[in-house]
């Protein structure tokens, strides 16, 4: 365990992250990169971008609260130190996505009201399930909820957003690339550290599996709401891309990004996240629980 945890030290994090892939970035992107003018001038696309970014801020605020709350519950110094790096990663994500809201034209004084207006209520419920475990000081459930379920979801959502932005919005794609690298590290810690703890505490399995089912339900409900409202903005985005001769990356997990409907996009995202959950939970000795399908 000591060898594996040495890969998650502060020193390693400093070398990989601030002195590695974040070097020469400002708010996670190149200093000369900006939101595309076409996006800022198109009210449908601008509002849709604000709505999506608000969900990212809300998710990252939850991750910041969870990772900082888990530091005290961690059973050993190396885990505490890793969670300290994760706390700072999550704070950085809150900061860069908040900055994106400002870049999209949200006024500083309107930040909280904008976040309140656009945050999906199902995402709030998703966060509440996790933060209840953290507040109880339940380290094992907290890390599964945070580093497997929340981070697993974030990782896949960021990958999809990056695939759709890489040509049309290189600034946002660059921002997402750094967060994906962070999330990969967080998921890796969750899988490596929690497997042994689950083996030591098999009695916790049922309760943690129930939590995963509940969080997955709220996640799917969030996806349904977000994609249900995204038809017009997807059409606008494609028109803009076509007008500029930009072809989004052809496929993502089998979905044709240039032509898939909102329903098809929701289905492929949900399937991809749930498949990831199954694999990752299996690695730590937990059985994936199929959530109820949101109405």
């Amino acid at each position, binding site marked *: 365990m000591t060898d594996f945890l040495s890969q998650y030290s*502060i020193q390693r994090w400093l070398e990989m992250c601030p002195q590695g892939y974040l070097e020469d970035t400002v708010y996670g992107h190149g200093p000369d990169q900006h939101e595309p003018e076409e996006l800022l001038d198109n009210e449908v696309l601008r509002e849709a971008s604000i709505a999506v970014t608000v969900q990212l801020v809300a998710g990252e605020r939850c991750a910041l609260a969870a990772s*900082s709350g888990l530091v005290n519950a961690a059973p050993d110094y190396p885990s505490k130190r890793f969670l300290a*790096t994760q706390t700072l990663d999550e704070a950085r994500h809150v900061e860069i996505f908040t900055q994106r809201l400002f870049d999209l034209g949200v006024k500083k004084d309107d930040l909280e009201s904008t976040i309140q207006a656009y945050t999906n209520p199902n995402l709030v419920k998703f966060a509440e399930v996790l933060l209840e475990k953290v507040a109880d000081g339940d380290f094992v459930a907290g890390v599964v909820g945070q580093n497997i379920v929340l981070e697993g979801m974030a990782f896949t959502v960021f990958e999809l957003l990056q695939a759709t932005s890489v040509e049309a919005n290189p600034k946002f794609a660059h921002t997402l690339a750094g967060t994906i690298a962070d999330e990969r590290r967080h998921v890796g810690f969750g899988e490596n550290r929690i497997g042994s703890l689950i083996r030591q505490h098999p009695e916790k399995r049922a309760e943690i599996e129930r939590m995963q089912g509940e969080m997955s339900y709220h996640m799917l409900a969030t996806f349904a709401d977000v994609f249900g409202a995204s038809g017009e903005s997807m059409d606008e985005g494609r028109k803009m891309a076509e007008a500029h001769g930009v072809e989004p990356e052809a496929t993502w997990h089998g979905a044709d990004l240039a032509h898939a409907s909102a329903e098809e996009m929701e289905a492929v995202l949900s399937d991809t996240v749930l498949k990831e959950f199954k694999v990752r939970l299996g690695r730590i000795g937990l059985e994936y629980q199929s959530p109820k399908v949101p109405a």
Partner: protein
Amino acid sequence: MEPHELDQDDFIAQVQSFEFWFEAVEGYLGDKPYGRDAEVPEPPLDDLERDALVTTLCNYCVGEAAALEASSGLVRLAPNHHAQIFLATQVADEARHLEVFLHRLAELGITDARAEVERRANPGLLAFKERLLRFVDAGDWEAAVFAQNVVLESMEDTVFRFHASVADPKTQQVLEGVVADERRHLGFGENDLGRRLARHPEDRERLAAVRAELDPLVLRSFEEAYEALGLGRDDRPSLGRDYLHSVERLGLTA
């Protein structure tokens, strides 16, 4: 634009950001694995000197573990997102301090640091840690920030700066990096509480009472450290006086 040219809200947004932290630590941590130049040789220490350094570093670990647990607990209590982000940077700083001191202990041949820290921890410092974490657990932002970012940081700043002036070159470099962080944390505590006290002068009395409770624990920690190091009365530095002078800046008379 330079930070001092900004209005108060923009100044706070800037200095309490990840970006600001990122630029600050890059300056003094770049090319310094575990807080010091890799090529600095291990100093020749006799058994007594080595044992004294191990005791001192073990107590630094107690202080840094307290700061790590307190600052991470404070993230959820922060009144706004700028303060939350600043505290997240402090969480990483405190974890780094714990890591560099544990690493230094390993270099000195300590294989079970946790047990060694438990064995050598000063009771006064442990009592301080317990009181600090009770403020955090109770959700008392003002008392917890005062105890953590003013009292504990002042104590550490005083001790580390003194120690850096007499330490071997390797330990000295580690301490200098830690002191640079502590000054940022102290600045946050003084700025946050200074603004609060200006708006709510009635809180002075309560924080003065907190100080009256904590000062004796800090001074006791110094005395215990001197005794553990075998320092005679005439050889003891005036850390207590320096600490009291430093914590006085908020004008809270115990």
